[in-house]
């Protein structure tokens, strides 16, 4: 920047940078803590009180146990299945819904919008939804996890708004050239909404990657559990250690369990973290695009 800044402006900038740095550190620290802890010595982590700034001792015991746990690999496989198929299915349904609702002059538009928005405020409840899934006969199947909650109303509304923001002239030009609705969708709307699509894909991916509740409710077979359910299992059994200690063995405590939780968090989060940098560039552009109605 070549502009000359006044002194007060400079101090202001410095303050802003400081503030942002502090906020960044606050956000980053929990992740660093987990990272450091995962490489530490289990006993030292267990007996440590307060923050840590570097690994306490060094050991890979936690990672050895986590990576030799067959459940972690089963979980990875299943999570990939859920993320890939779930995201594709969710995107298809969301695009279809958003496209229909963004058509001008569609008579039932208001009714369907109301209907969809209603689901953001009112839920069927856990047990009734469970009964529906059970009656459909998809309990304990991959399909239950992919279908239930596939469409996020919020995502659909963002997408609808972004579709509406596309200048009408573009669509009309295509229609005059003889394009039907599907051709308009595939050749005009989707290519011009790439940024929004990328963002929504990310929302769905991260959502599915992190979800465990539906799997907990609808799955019974451990061979179908996603990674997050196994992660939760490891975290809970590690935090219960002290409570169970009175009936468990004393001398056998190796404190590996303490490490396990940190290592599992790292193993379960790093892959999805890697997706962010690739989609980041769409972020600002994408969310902004849908937010303003002209």
């Amino acid at each position, binding site marked *: 920047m070549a502009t000359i800044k006044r002194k007060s402006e400079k101090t202001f900038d410095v303050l802003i940078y400081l503030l942002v740095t502090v906020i960044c550190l606050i956000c980053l620290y929990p992740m660093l803590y987990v990272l450091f802890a995962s490489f530490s010595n289990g006993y030292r982590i267990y007996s440590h*009180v307060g923050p840590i700034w570097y690994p306490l001792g060094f050991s890979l015991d936690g990672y050895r146990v986590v990576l030799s*746990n067959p*459940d972690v690999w089963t979980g990875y496989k299943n999570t990939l299945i859920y993320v890939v198929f779930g995201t594709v299915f969710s995107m298809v349904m969301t695009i279809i819904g958003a496209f229909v609702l963004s058509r001008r002059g569609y008579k039932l538009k208001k009714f369907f919008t109301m209907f969809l928005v209603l689901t953001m405020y009112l839920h069927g409840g856990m047990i009734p939804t469970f009964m529906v899934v059970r009656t459909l006969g998809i309990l304990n199947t991959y399909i239950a996890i992919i279908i239930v909650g596939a469409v996020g109303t919020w995502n659909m509304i963002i997408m609808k708004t972004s579709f509406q923001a596309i200048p009408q002239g573009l669509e009309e030009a295509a229609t005059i050239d003889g394009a039907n609705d599907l051709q308009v969708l595939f050749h005009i709307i989707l290519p011009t909404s790439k940024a929004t699509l990328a963002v929504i894909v990310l929302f769905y991916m991260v959502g599915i990657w992190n979800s465990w509740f539906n799997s907990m409710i609808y799955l019974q077979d451990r061979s179908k559990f996603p990674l997050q*359910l196994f992660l939760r*299992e490891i975290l809970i059994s590690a935090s219960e*250690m002290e409570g169970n200690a009175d009936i468990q*063995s004393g*001398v056998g405590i*190796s404190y590996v369990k303490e490490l396990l939780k940190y290592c599992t968090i790292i193993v379960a989060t790093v892959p999805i973290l890697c997706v962010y940098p690739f989609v980041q560039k769409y972020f600002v552009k994408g969310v902004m695009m849908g937010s303003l109605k002209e």
Partner: protein
Amino acid sequence: MKRRICLLLALVMALSVCAAASAEITYPLTENFGDKTLSWWHSLRAASYESSHDDNICWQAIEKNTGIDVKWIHPATGTEAEKLSLLFVSGDLPDIIQIDGYLETAGGSAAGVDDGNFVELTDYLMDNAPAYVAAITASDLAYAMATTADGRVTEFDQIKQTAPQYSRETLRVDIQEEIGWGDKMPVTIDDYTQLFADLKEHGYWGWAPTSSGLQTHFMFAYGIHNTFFLDEDGSVAFGPYTEAYKDYLKQMNAWWEAGYLYPDFTGSITRSALFDNKEVGLLITPSDISYGAAKLAGYEIYIVNYPRLYEGQQYRFETTTWDAVPADGIRTVVTTKCADPELAIQFLNYGYTEEGALIYNWGIEGTTYTVDADGKKVYTDTMLNNPTVPASSGQYVYKLHFGPKLAEPDVSCNPGTIGDPKALYFRELYSDDTTVDSTGIIFATLTVDQSVERAEYMTDIDTYYKEMALKFILGDLDIDENWDTYMSTMQSMGIEEAIAITQEAVDAFNAKEIPTEWIAASAK
């Protein structure tokens, strides 16, 4: 009366030994039933080290010896209670459920029987589970605990002797030297006051009490429990609704005001870590655990006997028992969806037979334990020094620490306790103290109606007294000034009614007698 019980006990024990030898159930069960499959909903206790009981060598042996192919259903750890509720909603019940502590409905398995979900076992037991009958008729206490108020059996309990007591006061040798106590042990509450004062002088906090401020070991010295208990006349009382409770609160308040208690004790802290880091001088924890931690960190510990008001005071709240009785919270039920309950019951009976209990308690001979020349069983390194599976998880993978079984006590077969002579020494320390008994403990369980009725009162009462306890201890409210209001509020919230309900349950419990035909059955 007492002699009669003793005689009866001796008789029953003698008979039950015979029963184990001549049980009429022969395993494998395939001869009578053919090849059968049973489904069993069972939580994994060491999910990091086994992903299904199909891979567990002990369960494999049990399935092979009984001739039953078990189809395992393992809920994800930490979701057991939710999954169990969903099981009932969906109605797709497996044949056998390990309900343990996960069943949240009032009344437990008895309510499940009343609702038509579980099979009532009472009439099946004599013919199909002689070993279990022998186990629960071994003492009056075992029988009373294994049956409902009206004498029904609704579940298979793990039968275990839990004594000697594991939770103890622990001190560090290095700190005790430093503050000039040497090997002198605190005995009375006044000794503890002195100990805390000396600790404070040397820059240590005295102790971090349990976050509610109601530390049972110290309450016991005042002759009260932190919940319902039996007073010296044998009638039911509620700890935080007694005059002795006021003395306890005053003592805690005095310690707090003097700065002896760890200031964050109400928050989420790891007490053992505070002790390891020399922040506090006293830790109340299972003795073998504190010994294991100390060994790892490289310091020595003292284990101290219970605190008393005066030397030689009778301590009425030993929470462990030398009788083999139903252990709290390890419970197995057979569901009404089971096509062949007799088969399931005969199968579950296996854990109470000599052969079955051996697998549950010790694992597989040659792999997890060996028998030395004197006939003494010794764990192998697979159990004790396994580089990949710590013994605390190993006892679910290489033996079955919990389950429908006749459990050997920890001091005989818990790898953590017997793996190190010092740990065993600490666990058994003071176990011969004759001034300790369990006369203050309530073993009775409530009927479904009683527990629903009592819960109505107790929900509010629990919130109230816990809130008040901290206010009194932390000095937010003056104890003398507010005591009468506190007691009258407790009364108006219905504590007397709750006590009366508990009294009913205790009376019914005390009146129960082992039916004679059961004694005969276990003698068969």
